[in-house]
C-alpha cells in the first residue's frame, strides 16, 4: 500500500511520547559487555575518530623523533636501524592507522545524520570493522613492544623487504597489519555505499544529497577496488614470500620486484585519494555553511569527484618513473597525472566562486579551509611538476617529494579535518569550541607547517635523498634541515593548543543548540549531541538545503514502529520509500568474530596454518552472529 502524503497538525506531545519509546529501543546496554556490544553509528564513528587521533599523535611523535635526528649533520640521536624503524612506523601509522580510519570514522558518524536515517545499513558489520581496525593497530604497536618493528619503509619494496634482506618478523607484522586495516576499510565502504544508496530520507534524490555524502560514496567505491590490490601486494606476494617461500617477487625464480611495485601503487595512488576525497566533502560542508550559500556548481563538483576517482586508478606509474619503463607508457602516465589536476582545479574554482558570491563568516573552521586552499594548491603545483618525467627523475625519492606529499596530505586532508572538527564540534559534544584558541592553533599549525616543509623543496633540489638517517656537513643541507626541525616543533605546539582547546571547550564551552552555525543540511536538524536514534521523525526532503528553506515545518515520516530499531529503505535514484527494515540491536558477536579472526591473522605472521585457525574461529563467530533469535516473525 503506497505511502500517503497528508498535511498533519504539529503535535509535540506525540513527539515526546515517541521519544520515550525510541529511547527504550535504542539505548545501549550498560556495563562493559554493553560497551563492547554497541552497534549504533555514533558510538562506533566516535571510536574510529578517537582511536585514529591517538595514532595521529603516535605518528606525530615519530615524525618529531626523525626531525630531531636530522636537525644537524652527523647526528647520533638515532642510529641507522633506529631511524629506519622510526620512519617506517611514521609512514605506516599515518597512512594506514590514522588517515583512512579517521576519514571513515567521520563518514560513519556524519553520513546517517546528513541523509536523514537512524543508523548505517549493517550495524554489526560496522562494529566488526572497528574491532578489526583496533586489532591492526594493536598488532603493529604490540609488535613494537617486543622489538618486532618493520624497517623497510611504508611501501616496503622487495627484495629489500624480502626474506633475505629483512630478517626477523618486523616486515611480516607490517604486511599482516595491512590486512586488518584493509578489512576494516572495506567493511565501512560496503556499509556506506548501501546506506547512501538505499537508506536516504524520502525525497532526497541523488542531486539533493550533500556533497560530503557524495565524496564518501565515491571514496567507498575507490576502497572497494583499491584495497584488494594492497591485500595481494602485502599478504599474497610479500608475506607468502617471506613465510612459505613463494617466488612472486624473487628475481631469481621468475618473480619480479617491479610486479610488487605495480600492484602496490595501483592501490597506493587511489589510497591517497581515498584520504583526500572525504576532506573535499568536509571543505564543501564548511564553505557552504560559513559563506551562507549553497556551493556553486553542484553538478560540476559531483562530476569532478567521480572523475577524480576514475583517473586516480590510471596514473600509479608516476611513482615508478625512475625504473626505466618504456617511454610511451611513461608519456601516457604523465598526461594522466596532469589530468587529475583538472578535477581538483574545478573544485577549487567552485569553492572560490562560492566565497566570492557568499557572505564569509571568518570562523576557525573557515580559517582551516583557507589554509587548505593555500597549502593544497601549492602542493598541487609541485604535483604537476612531479608528473613530468624529466623533473621527476631529478626529484623522485628526494626531500622535494617529501615536501610535495606532505603539502597535499597535511594540507589536503589534515587541515580540512581540523576544520571539520571545529565545524562539527558542537554536533559531536553539544558545546561550541571557542573560536579564539581555534584561530591561534590554526596560525601556529599554518606557520609551523610552512616552516617545516617549504625548505624541504630546496633540500630536495639540492640533492638530499629521502630516508637518509644522516648527512655530512659539507653537503650544504644543514640550514634547511634545521629550519624544518624548528617548524616540526611548531606543528607540535599547534597540535597541543588544539587538543587543549578541544578538551577545555568540551567541558566549559558555550552550550550549543541544534544548529549553531545556521547550517542547511540535515545533520543540523538533530539535537547536539544527537540522540541515539538521530531523528524522532525521519525527515522528508524537498530540496538540497532543507533547514534553509523549510525551517518552520519540515516534512516528517509517520507510521514507523518505535518498539524496534526500524529504518526506511528508499529507492536508489530519487529516494521513493520502498520498504521498512528492522536493524539488529546491540550484539557481542562482532567482537568475538573480530577477536577470533585477529588471533588467526596475527598467528599467520609465524606460520601459514594459523589462517585455518582464523577461518574456524571466524566461522564460529559468524554462526553465532547470524543465528536466528526471537522474535523470528517480523509482524508489519
Amino acid at each position, binding site marked *: 500500500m503506497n505511502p500517503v502524503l497528508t498535511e498533519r497538525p504539529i503535535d509535540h506531545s506525540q513527539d515526546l511520547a515517541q521519544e520515550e519509546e525510541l529511547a527504550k529501543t535504542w539505548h545501549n546496554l550498560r556495563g562493559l559487555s554493553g560497551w563492547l556490544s554497541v552497534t549504533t553509528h555514533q558510538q562506533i564513528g566516535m571510536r574510529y575518530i578517537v582511536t585514529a587521533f591517538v595514532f595521529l599523535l603516535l605518528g606525530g611523535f615519530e615524525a618529531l623523533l626523525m626531525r630531531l635526528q636530522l636537525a644537524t649533520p652527523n647526528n647520533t640521536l638515532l642510529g641507522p636501524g633506529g631511524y629506519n624503524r622510526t620512519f617506517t612506523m611514521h609512514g605506516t601509522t599515518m597512512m594506514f592507522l590514522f588517515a583512512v580510519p579517521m576519514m571513515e570514522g567521520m563518514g560513519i558518524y556524519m553520513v546517517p545524520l546528513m541523509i536523514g536515517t537512524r543508523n548505517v545499513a549493517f550495524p554489526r558489520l560496522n562494529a566488526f570493522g572497528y574491532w578489526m581496525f583496533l586489532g591492526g593497530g594493536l598488532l603493529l604497536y604490540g609488535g613494537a613492544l617486543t622489538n618486532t618493528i618493520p624497517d623497510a619503509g611504508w611501501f616496503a619494496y622487495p627484495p629489500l623487504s624480502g626474506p633475505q634482506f629483512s630478517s626477523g618478523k618486523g616486515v611480516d607484522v607490517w604486511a599482516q597489519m595491512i590486512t586488518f586495516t584493509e578489512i576494516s576499510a572495506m567493511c565501512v565502504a560496503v556499509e556506506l555505499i548501501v546506506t547512501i544508496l538505499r537508506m536516504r530520507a524520502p525525497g532526497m534524490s541523488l542531486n539533493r544529497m550533500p556533497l560530503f555524502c557524495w565524496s564518501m560514496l565515491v571514496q567507498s567505491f575507490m576502497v572497494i577496488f583499491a584495497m584488494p590490490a594492497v591485500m595481494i601486494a602485502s599478504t599474497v606476494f610479500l608475506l607468502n614470500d617471506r613465510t612459505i617461500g613463494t617466488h612472486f617477487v624473487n*628475481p631469481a625464480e621468475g618473480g619480479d620486484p617491479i610486479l610488487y611495485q605495480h600492484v602496490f601503487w595501483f592501490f597506493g595512488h587511489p589510497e591517497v585519494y581515498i584520504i583526500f576525497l572525504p576532506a573535499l566533502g568536509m571543505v564543501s560542508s564548511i564553505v557552504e555553511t560559513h559563506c551562507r550559500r549553497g556551493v*556553486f556548481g553542484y553538478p560540476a563538483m559531483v562530476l569532478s569527484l567521480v572523475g577524480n576517482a576514475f583517473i586516480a586508478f590510471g596514473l600509479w606509474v608516476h611513482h615508478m618513473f625512475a625504473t626505466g619503463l618504456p617511454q610511451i607508457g611513461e*608519456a601516457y602516465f604523465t598526461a594522466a597525472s596532469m589530468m587529475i589536476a*583538472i578535477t581538483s*582545479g574545478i573544485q577549487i574554482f567552485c569553492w572560490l566562486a562560492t566565497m566570492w*558570491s557568499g557572505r564569509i563568516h571568518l570562523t576557525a573552521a573557515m580559517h582551516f579551509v583557507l589554509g587548505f586552499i593555500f597549502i593544497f594548491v601549492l602542493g598541487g603545483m609541485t604535483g604537476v611538476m612531479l608528473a613530468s618525467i*624529466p623533473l621527476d627523475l631529478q626529484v623522485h625519492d628526494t626531500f622535494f617529494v617529501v615536501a610535495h606529499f606532505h603539502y597535499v596530505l597535511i594540507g589536503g586532508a589534515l587541515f580540512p579535518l581540523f576544520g571539520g572538527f571545529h565545524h562539527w564540534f558542537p554536533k559531536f559534544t553539544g558545546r561550541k569550541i571557542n573560536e579564539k584558541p581555534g584561530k591561534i592553533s590554526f596560525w601556529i599549525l599554518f606557520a609551523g607547517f610552512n616552516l617545516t616543509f617549504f625548505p624541504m623543496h630546496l633540500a630536495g633540489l639540492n640533492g638530499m635523498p629521502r630516508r637518509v638517517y644522516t648527512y655530512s656537513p659539507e653537503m650544504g643541507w644543514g640550514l634547511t634541515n634545521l629550519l624544518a626541525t624548528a617548524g616540526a616543533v611548531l606543528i607540535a605546539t599547534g597540535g597541543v593548543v588544539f587538543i587543549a582547546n578541544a578538551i577545555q571547550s568540551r567541558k566549559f564551552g558555550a552550550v550549543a543548540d541544534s544548529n549553531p552555525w545556521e547550517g542547511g543540511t540535515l545533520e543540523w536538524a538533530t539535537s547536539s549531541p544527537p540522540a541515539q536514534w538521530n531523528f524522532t521523525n525521519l525527515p522528508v526532503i524537498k530540496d538540497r538545503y532543507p533547514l534553509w528553506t523549510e525551517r518552520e515545518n519540515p516534512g516528517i515520516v509517520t507510521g514507523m514502529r518505535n518498539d524496534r530499531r526500524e529504518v526506511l529503505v528508499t529507492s536508489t535514484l530519487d529516494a521513493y520509500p520502498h520498504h521498512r527494515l528492522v536493524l539488529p540491536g546491540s550484539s557481542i558477536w562482532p567482537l568475538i568474530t573480530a577477536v577470533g579472526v585477529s588471533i588467526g591473522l596475527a598467528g599467520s605472521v609465524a606460520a601459514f596454518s594459523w589462517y585455518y585457525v582464523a577461518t574456524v574461529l571466524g566461522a564460529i563467530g559468524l554462526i553465532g552472529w547470524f543465528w536466528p533469535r526471537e522474535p523470528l516473525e517480523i509482524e508489519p
Partner: protein
Amino acid sequence: MRRLALAAFAAPALLAQQSALDPAGPDAGAIRALLVFFVVLLGALFLLVVAMTIIPLVRRHRGIDQEPLERTHRPSANTELRLKAVTGVATVATIVILFGLVVLSVSVGKATSSALDRTNSMVVEVTGNQWWWHVQYANDDASRIAVTANEMHIPVGRSVMIRATSNDVIHSFWAPNLQGKRDLFPKHITTEWFQADRPGRFRGQCAEFCGLQHAHMALWVVAEPPAKFESWLAHQLEPSAAPSGDDQKHGQEVFLNNACAMCHTIAGTGAAGQVGPDLTHFGSRLTLAAGTLPNSKGNLAGWIADPQSVKPGNHMATVPIKPEDMQPLIDYLESLR
C-alpha cells in the same frame, strides 16, 4: 624574466655539493631549464589563486546585488551566470595549460633520456651492492676492462651510457649535476645516458632506500679532459704497484694472510675476492667507504680498525689486526696508486 629566475636559482648560497640546480651537462641543464619554466608559470598561477582567495575576504561590502537575507544567501541569477563564465574560463585555461605542460615535458623527456644522438657513447657498467658501487668500463677485449669502485672518471664532452644492475636490493644511480636518476634492479639491466660539458667532481648518491647504510652510498663522477681520462684509464688497466720497502711488504703479507683477501681483489697479488670493492688502485681514489670519508691514512686506519663505527650495519668484517701490523697495512694500501 627568465634571467631573473635563473639568477635566483644560481645564487651560490643556495647551491650545495650535489645539486640539481647547478647542471654540468646538457641533460641536467635541460631539466633545470624546464624546472625554472614550471616554477615560474605554476608559481604565477598559485599566486593568482591565492589572490582570488584573499580578495573576497577583504572586499566585504561589494556591489554584487544579493538579497541581504541574514540566514541564507541566494545570489541573483546574473551573479551565478558571471561566476559560471569565470569558472568555465578558468577550467578551460587549466586544461590548455596542462596540455601544454604535457607536451613540453614529454619533448624534454625525449631529449634527455633517449639514445638517438648518442652514437659513440662510452659504456660503463655500474653494479649496485649493499652500500657501495662497483664500476666497470666495458670493452670488447677482456684484457682492457678496467674495474674500480665508488668512483667513475668520464671524458668531458663525450656521452656516457650507464648499464646498471644490482647484486642484492633496488638501488638508484643519481648524479644530480649530470642527469636524473635510474633505478638498479637485481637480474635486470637498466640504461641511462649522460654527458659532462665541463671538468669537475660531481657527487652522486643512491636515491632508492636500500637498507641500513642507504645514507652512505655515494660515488664521485670525475669529469676530466679526454687526454687525462685516457691516461687514467690506461693506468687503471695495469696491475697493482709492487710493494717497495719491507714495511709495505709486511703490509701485503698482513693483507693476504687475514680475511681481507677473502673479499677484496688486488690485481697482481693472490687476493681475488669478488664480493668486496676492487682495491687495485685504491690509493688514487678520492674517498673510501663509498664516499663516507675522504681517503687519508688516518681515516683508512679508523675504517679498518672498526668499520661498524663509521658505517653501522655495513658488510665489511671487523677483522682484528694486531697493532704492529696496522701501520704497514695502511702504508701498503695507500701505496696502491
